[in-house]
């Protein structure tokens, strides 16, 4: 096992196990921060490799996706099998496998173990969660288990620092030893009923073999009453209390990404503004300065600003996942989402998307089922995110009459605002339903999900999840978003405007002229026939185009295009100025006002449904590992947005609103 250089090559050790067995905790304890994170070629299954050194021997630890079986029915299982058999491109055949086995749930965990033993690799069993098992009155005799399996069994309780170095010894030793004999399944297989499909026969035979072992190695002490985990579970899945706790947890999750993240986001914006001011002060006016300030710095700011939300959401998710609540949340919400062709696991990603689709789409990583995950990602951008709120607020405040609806206290602008949120949800449900019955039609997706015992999360694992989510966003999506904002900056800046000679221009008018004459502005004019049926003039079309980098810029763009210069529509003064200007806007060369209630509604509906957010599309591309899905998302959402805006404008005009 020496490389040409004389130095021993690292041992390759694969880490396999069922979900929720403490596999990530063990990975972190053995190898610390991963040295390589990526995707396996051709599939969106995460590849995670870490390195540690033990008695002078380097070991590369390859973390495999958590699976219940090696039957290779899902991409996760296929990856696990391919890596273990040395068939995965870029991963040498492992010298040894560590199977993580949950001591409190031995029988089901031995199922996967028996399949790994069949592969004939040197194998070490890491017996985790022994403390939880003891709490439930279960002890597993590691020595007799080792004898029955024919491979070393090392009890490991990472939170108590037990067993990690013994496990390292054992792994380095086992890699040099003979593989264990495969489990003696033949006798059980012969017993099984020949009428069944082979996979069913195999499963029944394995459990028969497991039952024989479990009877020998598990000792149960008599315990009275329910364990702590069961007591907590009884509350958390209770009709009333469970729902109440769930509502509170989700409220906390949502408000924290919606509100708690904003001070950090403000800080980032202020920091970027500071840097921009520095650059502006030290560079002469010109294309370079414009590129740096409006292209690069604005782009970097636009990327970094998402990090607080992503970090907070993943902090929540990692904690909920660590204590076992994530699957309970899915359990509680499943029924609600199943009707739309989704599953309970889509709930948190979709809820988060009300704050911002980007962390929401990333949160869809927690959905193991590929079809459900993709569907969730595709409809997540339909949830009205916080970037749409200012658009709704401004237009509702300015153009929706403050009339009472049914009750004197129920005002029309508020109703319209709520209707915009509802519109996104309803359309998302319809799209998910439609797709799940057409493009994604297939056999029913199993929702067979373990509800793990209640436990305390590990700080190291939680922090690693947060770090990993933020880092992968910055590295993958971030660079793409930055590149896109530079391109869009160029489209909005070039060609340089030709100002009519002799005229006196204020700076605001010059900026407006520059945008109108840029490629983006010209494109806006060119698409006027397309947006006219929505009741929009070309300026509105242009603003909608220019808001492609991020929806929230649309108000700012409207300010520029209506010669207001850089107003901040968010503050009182800027908002009123913009509203006054919009109310005064007329169609080119006529006295006819552009804005009316139907036009305002048509803009709102368009923004509720459109995919005018380059960052979201970039993240969809990265998370699905394919360019097809962002294109599909953009196409279907833009079509729906156009149709919706068209319908509401025509309806409103016909009814004389």
């Amino acid at each position, binding site marked *: 096992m020496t490389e040409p250089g004389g130095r021993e090559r690292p041992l390759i050790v694969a880490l396999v196990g069922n979900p929720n067995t403490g596999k990530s905790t063990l990975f972190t304890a053995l190898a610390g921060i991963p040295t390589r994170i990526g995707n396996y070629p051709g599939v969106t299954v995460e590849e995670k490799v870490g390195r540690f050194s033990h008695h002078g021997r380097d070991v590369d630890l390859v973390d495999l996706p958590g699976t219940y*079986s090696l*039957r290779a029915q899902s991409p996760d299982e296929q990856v696990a099998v391919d890596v273990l058999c040395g068939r995965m491109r870029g991963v040498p055949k492992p010298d040894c496998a560590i199977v993580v086995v949950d001591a409190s749930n031995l029988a089901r965990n031995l199922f996967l173990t028996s399949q790994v033993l069949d592969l004939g690799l040197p194998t070490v069993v890491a017996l985790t969660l022994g403390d939880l098992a003891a709490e439930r009155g279960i002890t597993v005799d590691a020595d007799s288990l080792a004898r029955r399996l024919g491979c070393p069994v090392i009890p490991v309780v990472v939170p108590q620092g037990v067993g990690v170095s013994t496990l390292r010894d054992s792994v380095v030793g086992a890699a040099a030893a003979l593989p264990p004999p495969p489990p003696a399944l033949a006798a059980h297989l012969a017993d099984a009923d020949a009428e069944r499909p082979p996979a069913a026969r195999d499963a029944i035979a394995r459990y028969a073999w497991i039952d024989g072992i479990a009877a020998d190695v598990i000792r149960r002490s008599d315990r009275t009453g329910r364990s702590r985990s069961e007591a907590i579970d009884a509350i958390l899945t209770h*009709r009333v209390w469970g729902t109440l706790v769930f509502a509170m947890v989700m409220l906390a999750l949502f408000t924290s990404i919606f509100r708690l993240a904003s001070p950090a986001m403000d800080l980032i914006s202020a920091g970027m503004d500071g840097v921009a001011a520095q650059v502006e002060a030290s560079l002469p006016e010109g294309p370079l300065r414009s590129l740096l300030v409006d292209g690069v710095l604005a782009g970097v700011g636009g990327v970094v600003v998402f990090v607080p939300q992503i970090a907070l959401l993943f902090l929540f998710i990692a904690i909920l996942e660590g204590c076992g609540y994530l699957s309970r949340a899915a359990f*509680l919400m*499943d*029924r609600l989402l199943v009707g739309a062709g989704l599953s309970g696991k889509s709930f948190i990603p979709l809820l988060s998307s009300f704050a911002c689709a980007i962390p929401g789409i990333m949160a869809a990583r927690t959905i193991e089922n590929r079809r459900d995950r993709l569907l969730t990602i595709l409809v997540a951008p339909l949830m009205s995110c916080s970037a749409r709120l200012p658009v709704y607020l401004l237009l509702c405040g300015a153009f929706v009459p403050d009339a009472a609806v049914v009750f004197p206290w129920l005002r029309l602008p508020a109703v319209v605002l709520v209707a915009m949120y509802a519109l996104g949800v309803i359309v998302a449900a319809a799209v998910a339903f439609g797709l799940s019955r057409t493009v994604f039609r297939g056999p029913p997706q199993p929702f*067979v999900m*373990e509800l793990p015992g209640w436990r305390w999360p590990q700080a190291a694992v939680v922090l690693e999840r947060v770090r990993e989510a933020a880092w992968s966003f910055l590295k993958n999506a971030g660079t793409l978003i930055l590149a896109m904002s530079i391109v869009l900056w160029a489209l909005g800046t070039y060609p340089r405007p030709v100002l009519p000679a002799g005229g006196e221009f204020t700076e605001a008018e010059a900026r407006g002229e520059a945008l109108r004459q840029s490629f983006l502005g010209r494109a806006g004019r060119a698409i006027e026939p397309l947006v006219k049926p929505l009741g929009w003039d070309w300026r509105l079309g242009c603003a909608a185009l220019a808001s492609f980098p991020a929806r929230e810029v649309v108000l700012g763009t409207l300010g520029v295009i209506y010669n207001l210069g850089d107003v901040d529509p968010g503050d009182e003064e800027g908002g009123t100025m913009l509203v006054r200007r919009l109310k005064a806007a007329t169609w080119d060369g006529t006295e006819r006002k552009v804005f009316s209630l139907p036009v305002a509604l048509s803009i709102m509906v368009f923004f509720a449904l459109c995919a005018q957010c380059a960052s979201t599309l970039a993240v969809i591309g990265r998370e699905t590992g394919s360019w097809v899905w962002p294109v599909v998302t953009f196409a279907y959402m833009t079509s729906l947005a156009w149709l919706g805006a068209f319908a509401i404008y025509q309806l409103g005009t016909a009814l004389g609103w």
Partner: protein
Amino acid sequence: MQSLEEIGVGQTASIADVPGADAVSLRLLEMGLTPGVRVAVVGRAPLGDPVELEVRGYRLSIRRREAALVTVTT
């Protein structure tokens, strides 16, 4: 023969078979719902579906449609 779907919350039953050859049935077998095993219906989600089971000492959530694939004896 009853199906697991018909077992009420708080009751236990013994698995007779998971006769199907579809992916869901195979997954249920792999999760340890093999003939002869005791299973308890521990709870049901507030909206009526899915159900929470205790089987082989752990908790498992499956939809009613999936529970209907399992035959049991009480």
